[in-house]
């Protein structure tokens, strides 16, 4: 089963939120999902500690650079999707995880700072593709976006698209329900209502579906 690595050297880009939304939505759609918490801040572990994990999901924590390749290999098997949540720094752990990825998702806020630092992950992927002589599919998802796109957002999106970067549509909007995942744990369907839940669930589902389509080549 595919390994999806959530990577950006920029902290606060929305990696852990993206990992949880993707993992819980794919699990809701019937996949068995293993989430690897490789962030020393332990965001996924915090989420996992809040309540019972949704059906078909499991979390492994405390995985460092010396264990990452072995751990992915151990869980990358039929019937599972492995999602790797990484720390927000440029580290060897990140480059090793990318080397084992079927798909790399780089979340970034639609700001110049996030885009500038996030693009370093894309450059690293290109370098690893050459070194390992294999294609590593990758894409960018904008996170914490507003209903009305700013001029900066549009400019960054155009610039990335112009460089041939695959941009996921829909982006992950700024939603109270998304940040509340770390308060209540579980998935969006299990938590008490937070803002417009229907819109949050639709956004999460469509995002996960877009990733699934990339994985299956639809």
């Amino acid at each position, binding site marked *: *089963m*595919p*390994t999806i690595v959530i990577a950006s*050297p920029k902290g606060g880009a929305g990696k852990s939120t993206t990992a949880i939304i993707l993992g819980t939505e*794919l699990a809701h*759609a*019937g*996949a068995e999902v293993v989430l690897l918490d490789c962030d020393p801040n332990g965001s996924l572990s915090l989420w996992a500690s809040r309540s019972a994990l949704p059906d078909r999901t499991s979390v492994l924590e405390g995985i*460092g*650079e*010396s264990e990452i*390749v*072995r751990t992915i*290999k151990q869980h*990358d*098997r*039929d*019937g599972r*999707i492995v999602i790797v949540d990484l720390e927000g*720094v*440029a*580290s*060897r*752990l*990140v*480059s*090793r995880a*990318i*080397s*084992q990825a*079927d798909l790399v998702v780089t979340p970034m806020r639609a700001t110049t700072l996030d885009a500038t630092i996030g693009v*370093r992950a894309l*450059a*690293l992927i290109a*370098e*690893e593709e*050459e*070194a*390992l002589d*294999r294609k590593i599919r990758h894409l960018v998802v904008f996170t914490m976006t507003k209903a009305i796109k700013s001029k900066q957002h549009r400019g960054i999106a155009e610039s990335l698209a112009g460089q041939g970067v695959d941009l996921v549509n829909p982006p992950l909007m700024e939603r109270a329900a998304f940040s509340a995942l770390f308060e209540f744990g579980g998935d969006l*369907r299990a938590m008490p209502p937070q803002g417009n*839940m*229907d819109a949050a*669930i*639709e956004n999460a*589902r469509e995002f*996960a*579906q877009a990733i*699934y389509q990339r*994985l*299956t080549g639809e």
Partner: protein
Amino acid sequence: MADPKPFAVDIGRLKSRAKDTSTQALEKTDRAGEEHGFVARSPEKRRGRKPSPRTGQVHAKVMPNVSDEIADEARRRGITQGVIIEEAWRLYKENIR
């Protein structure tokens, strides 16, 4: 809450590709990462025993039975003879001085 447009994952369509996990591939990955500033940041684990903070030394000759008893007691408790002397000194300060 019912999903208006649910989607279902077809497990059979999710294919994983074999990845190279050899030492050579790992070295190539690390080199590629280092060129872009993705370097080792995990704290190095120190090997072996930590150096003792006990750097002071006493120069004492005692009767053979006393040295034997101190050695036996230290061995029994799994501590150094220095700890026994420290404890004896603490008692001396509390009770005699």
